[in-house]
């Protein structure tokens, strides 16, 4: 158990600012996920926390110890990588006890430990198998068992599931969750997969270009992203963002010049937030396709390209300019090609500043 605090942490490679002055607090026992596209700095940050990279600037604290100058071995951390890093020719139990032997733990105690973690992970029956004989999902379980067998204060996981197929990934996520809750260990998990982040995290740290874009729990990041990037990156499908312009200081039109109708309250709100332009964001589930209006005041005209059925939900696809958007449709595929209206529910609209990407 440990709190982690990053204070103005930076890591440069030559002129490239891989991590650029980030500040973050991670609570005791918290499951924190660093999420972002490749090159955003998430793995570099993790490696700094692990002590595998020397920092360029700033401080890393575990509780109130400044660990900048601690060797990885002295930080009481355990790490799991995408590519397992197991000893393929050794049996499972010898892989798991490896770190304990290094600590010269007596055999009886080692046996007890191995029994505990292998039961926790449901790999008791694999202990005498060789790593090379195991399927990938089981290999990753062994890697995880080896990581937690020393009861580290901090568990660091770097894209541990990206080498697995989706179906194994889903099963492993459930395992991670169970184990993290059972062990109560501060966990930092790096991924580019937003589903994984949404499933596992107590707190998600969204990163882009070496900086933290936004931090929050999955629910808040989904419902009310404070930044266009977060809305785009979180959720599958992602959030719809529509460019809007204010014409003659009074009327709101879409970026392509087409009309959009806002209720009076929302028009006033938009006008009070911006004088020139703004972006309004809405999740597909709050935007409905209707062929005929029925007294709604928030809508704009669209033409559906097609209807896509994903996870047993029907999404209508439509374009404005070159950009693709999604809305909910009630019926099935026959709606493809139909013209109508995208109607939205008031409370779920969010307004953003197109220049900074921040919520207004």
């Amino acid at each position: 158990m440990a709190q982690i605090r990053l204070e103005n942490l930076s890591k440069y490679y030559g002129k490239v600012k891989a991590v650029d002055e980030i500040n973050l607090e991670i609570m005791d026992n918290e499951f924190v996920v660093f999420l972002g596209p490749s090159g955003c700095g998430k793995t570099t940050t993790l490696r700094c926390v692990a002590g595998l990279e020397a920092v360029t600037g700033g401080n890393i604290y575990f509780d109130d110890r400044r660990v900048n100058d601690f060797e990885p071995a002295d930080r009481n951390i355990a790490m799991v990588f995408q590519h397992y890093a197991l000893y393929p020719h050794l049996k499972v139990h010898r892989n798991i006890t490896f770190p304990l032997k290094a600590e010269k733990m007596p055999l009886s105690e080692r046996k007890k430990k191995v029994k505990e973690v292998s039961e926790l992970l449901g790999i008791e029956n694999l202990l005498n198998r060789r790593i090379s004989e195991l399927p990938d999902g089981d290999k990753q379980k062994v890697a995880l068992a080896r990581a937690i067998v020393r009861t580290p204060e901090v568990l660091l996981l770097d894209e541990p599931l990206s080498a697995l197929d989706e179906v194994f990934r889903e099963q492993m996520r459930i395992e991670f969750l169970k184990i993290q809750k059972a062990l109560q260990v501060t966990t930092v998990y790096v991924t580019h997969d937003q589903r994984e982040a949404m499933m596992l995290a107590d707190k998600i740290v969204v990163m882009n270009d070496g900086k933290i874009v936004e931090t929050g729990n999955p629910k808040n990041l989904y419902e009310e992203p404070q930044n266009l990037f977060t809305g785009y990156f979180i959720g599958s499908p992602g959030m719809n963002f529509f460019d809007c312009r204010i014409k003659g200081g009074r009327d709101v039109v879409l970026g392509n010049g087409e009309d959009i109708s806002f209720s009076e309250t929302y028009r006033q709100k938009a006008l009070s937030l911006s004088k020139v332009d703004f972006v309004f964001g809405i999740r597909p589930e709050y935007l409905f396709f209707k062929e005929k209006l029925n007294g709604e005041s928030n809508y704009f005209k669209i033409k559906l390209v097609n209807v896509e059925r994903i996870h047993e939900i029907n999404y209508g696809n439509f374009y404005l300019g070159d950009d693709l958007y999604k809305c909910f449709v009630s019926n099935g595929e026959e709606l493809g090609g139909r013209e109508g209206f995208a109607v939205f529910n008031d409370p779920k609209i969010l307004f953003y500043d197109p220049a900074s990407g921040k919520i207004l």
Partner: protein
Amino acid sequence: MLQLKNVSKSFGDVQAVSNLSLEIQEREIFVLLGPTGAGKTTTLKIAAGLIKPDAGQVFISEKDVTEIPPAFRDISFVFENYNLFHIYNVYDNIAFALRSKLIQVDESEIDKRVRAFSKELHIEHLLDRLTGTLSGGETQRVALARALVRKASLNLFDEPLSNLDLKLREELRVEFKELHKKYHSTIFYVTHDHDSAVSVADRIGIIYGGVLHQIDTPDNLIENPNHITVATLINYPTINIIDCSFENHSLQVNHQMPLVELTSLQVDKIRSQTSEKEIQVGLKLKSVKLGKAPGNLNFSGKLLHTEYQGYNKVVNIDYEGMPIRLITNEVVQLDYGEQIDFNFSPQDIFLFNKSSGMRIL
């Protein structure tokens, strides 16, 4: 259009594809879905003529092409790694196959087609660029244009969208469907990506361990899987699988907790299919409901975690050490470890033979 008849292929000791048969209709998008190593790419390469099957036959347009080399099969192929020529610009890459001696197309027709397809795929502005300088999404579009421009009678696609990020994949899926509607090409598409498969496919074949388990529309596979692998792979989030033992007219968890009392009809059905006691119960996430419901089977577990997957939330429950998941759009106001009630209808369960994986009920 394409027919594979009892094809098999092994590499050394590994049986990559075993006794696989399928038939793809004209103008259909047929997707072969399965995890890495399932035999998807091998099957596709057999259809292309890039791999010769150990046994079985390949027919294209009712003609036996088993012995015919790829160049003479009137097919186009998009590989996972694109295989573009980086020394050529985009235009010449797209035009490449049309300039082959085997296809007699004159330059003005080539120009017309290259421009038409680049317009469709939004790459007109890139025609002069070298392909090595393109982004992932652009490269993918060029590869698609190069395949489609040939208007071959059969298009073979190996994971065409897998290397793209999620948002690009969502966009290309839609364009892909639109292009298909317009040009009516016949497409054989292999992928491990569930969402791409259900989104683009007319029909899906589920393959695992070299065995093709079932072919049907996405909805029918979800409603009526014939094998546990099908149920696992076609549902996202994946189905709950509960190991049970069949004892005294009931299915029990951990040999003690009754999960389901069976009707005599169900008992007879199980007995007629297997003498084993080990049964796996498959339960879709949407079949499990929160709270108690009269008439349903009611249980109580501990809340592990709620996943905020967007519109739907996936609730993870620990029931007697076994994970049970359900999907809901209600908000769950409970904390970790608190008691949570759930229920399901005995009508909604699937029963699978544990050793063979075959569906019993």
